[in-house]
């Protein structure tokens, strides 16, 4: 009697033969020691394969993925925060350096408010309150800057802040392209 082909033996071990084929295989195995040996060998192989030894990845694998996924956003946030801070500092410094407090616009508005009534007067009064608060802040800031930075450094500070702001803006805009180029290279 011809021996069973290997795929029949494997399928028999896996219980994937049809009822008739399985019965024929079982009958054959009873009388054929060679096929019994082969079937046992496939069973042994199956049991070894079914319990694979898994490789443990290096400990740095997940932290590096997390670093790649999340701090990217944090780094962007810090870039935009630095940009905002430099912009605020630049505007404040320009305001102080050119002494815009002498502007008569707000004073004119205040005078208009005095001669007006109703909602327009309220709006102008609200603007005046904000203006007064800003002016108080400005004076405090000016006093502080006068102590920290001599007035002659004004243009240098402005140029410095413009350069810083432009640099950060350029970096924020180019960063995704640089990153992609780096990834392609690596």
């Amino acid at each position, binding site marked *: 009697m011809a021996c069973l082909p290997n795929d029949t033996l494997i*399928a028999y071990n896996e219980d994937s033969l049809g009822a008739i084929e399985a019965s024929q295989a079982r009958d054959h195995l009873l009388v054929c020691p060679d096929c019994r040996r082969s079937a046992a060998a496939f069973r*042994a192989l199956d049991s*070894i394969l079914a319990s694979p030894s898994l490789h443990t*990845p290096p400990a740095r*694998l997940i932290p590096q993925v997390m670093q790649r996924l999340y701090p990217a956003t944090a780094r962007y946030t810090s870039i935009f925060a630095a940009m905002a801070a430099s912009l605020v500092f630049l505007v404040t410094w320009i305001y102080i350096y050119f002494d815009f407090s002498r502007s008569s616009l707000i004073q004119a508005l205040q005078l208009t408010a005095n001669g007006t009534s109703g909602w327009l007067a309220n709006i102008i009064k609200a603007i005046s309150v904000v203006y007064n608060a800003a002016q108080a802040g400005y004076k405090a800031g000016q006093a502080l800057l006068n102590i920290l930075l001599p007035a002659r450094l004004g243009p240098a500070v402005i140029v410095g802040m413009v350069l810083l702001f432009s640099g950060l803006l350029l970096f924020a805009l180019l960063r995704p392209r640089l990153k992609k180029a780096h990834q392609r290279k690596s």
Partner: protein
Amino acid sequence: MTLDEDQVLIKRTLRGERKAYEELMRKYEKKIFSFVIRMVRNEDVAVDLTQDFFFKIYTVMDKYNFEYKFSTWAYRICYNLVIDHIRKNQAQVDSLDDDSVSPRDLAASENVSREDGFKNLAQEETRDYVWRVVDQIPLKFRELILLRYIQDLKYEEIAAITSLPVGTVKNRIFKAKELLKQEMEKDGMLA
């Protein structure tokens, strides 16, 4: 719809919970890394590809369809990533279609023990030996053995991942087992 454990982790990740994604990675890192390293046979490349896989899964997670098992979807992405890498670097690994080289010839080039028969080896050593031989069989058989036994997938799931017909998957796995059995016999383990 009831969500399984993986899907709950995905929902939490999509809500912005970093811990949830870390948990998902921890759950799959060993299986994915084992699959990748046995496919590419280079630890550094395997680390990079596993990291790329987790990065990719995160970036396309919003496209995941909750009607399907996460693992099948993820393994498909992993499989494609690895196959793409292998196709681009064919000189470093054996060809996808190369089944002309016998596992014995390939195994001989590695440190696979030839002197000891399986009968004389402890269970752990036997397992290591068999898996080392698996590492040497042609890729088109190896990938299916890895998906079947490392990822513990059914024939139908493997067919969905590899885009092969179920019959082909079955035949190749059977053929792979024949190759492995021949190796074991040659080493006297099954004598």
